[in-house]
């Protein structure tokens, strides 16, 4: 019984994949393991591994509405000419598009702190990476449980 169901499922998936290939979709949703967030991060960091400090990514643990999730990011930095945050990248691991937003700061910002509202398609991890003026990178990561997805795929 179970074997039969598995076989049927496998056939369905197989057929779907064939259709997708025939239609020229290079990244069928059910076959793609990631949305390419690793690549977006690598481009931003230039291959450096971010240290897990200085960045505080504040997101709710549970979001009822994935269409509008409040997010605050704070980066510990004196924000002087000598030492300041330049860019902060935010990616979502399972959104249709990995890139969420990139913030640009300068010493004129005074404080590296920003809030906005983001969309999350499903329960997933969000990563914030800060790049300093000396090129060093820092990160924070939070998982958000999403009750109703919000990337408008329905």
């Amino acid at each position: 019984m179970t074997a039969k169901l598995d076989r049927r499922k496998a056939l369905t998936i197989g057929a779907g994949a064939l259709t997708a290939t025939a239609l020229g979709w290079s990244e069928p949703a059910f076959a793609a393991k990631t949305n390419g967030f690793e690549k977006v991060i690598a481009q931003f960091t230039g291959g450096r591994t971010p240290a897990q400090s200085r960045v505080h990514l504040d997101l709710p643990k549970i979001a009822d509405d994935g269409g509008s999730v409040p997010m605050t990011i704070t980066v510990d930095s004196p924000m002087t000419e000598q030492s300041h945050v330049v860019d902060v990248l935010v990616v979502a691991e399972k959104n249709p598009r990995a890139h969420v937003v990139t913030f640009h700061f300068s010493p004129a910002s005074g404080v590296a702190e920003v809030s906005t509202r983001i969309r999350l398609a499903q329960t997933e991890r969000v990563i914030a990476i800060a790049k300093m003026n000396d090129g060093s990178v820092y990160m924070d990561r939070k998982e958000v449980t999403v009750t109703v997805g919000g990337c408008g795929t329905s």
Partner: protein
Amino acid sequence: MAAHQVKIKLDKTEAKKGDIVEVKALVYHPMETGLRKDRSGKVIPRHILKKFICMVAGKEVFSADFDTAIAANPFIRFKFRAVQSGPVVLTWVDEDGSDIVGQARITVN
């Protein structure tokens, strides 16, 4: 394009030199992802604000590159260091090539 309404609020309009000023801004915009379909199954075309820039007294203090994952009616809160009096100009750059501009003013004593 339809007129977009902008709301801007500074936590203080007068500051001493070196004070940190908080800006809250909201702009009415659908931020259509291009992934949604209407009732007839047609894809609703993508239409988002791509960039946000804040200039204070002619100097850029903060900017952001938005993407489809910014919620509709984008809200943003950030801070800047008050250095000199002048206009606080917020610009949202629409993908369709238009700009939405809002303004406030900071007086530095």
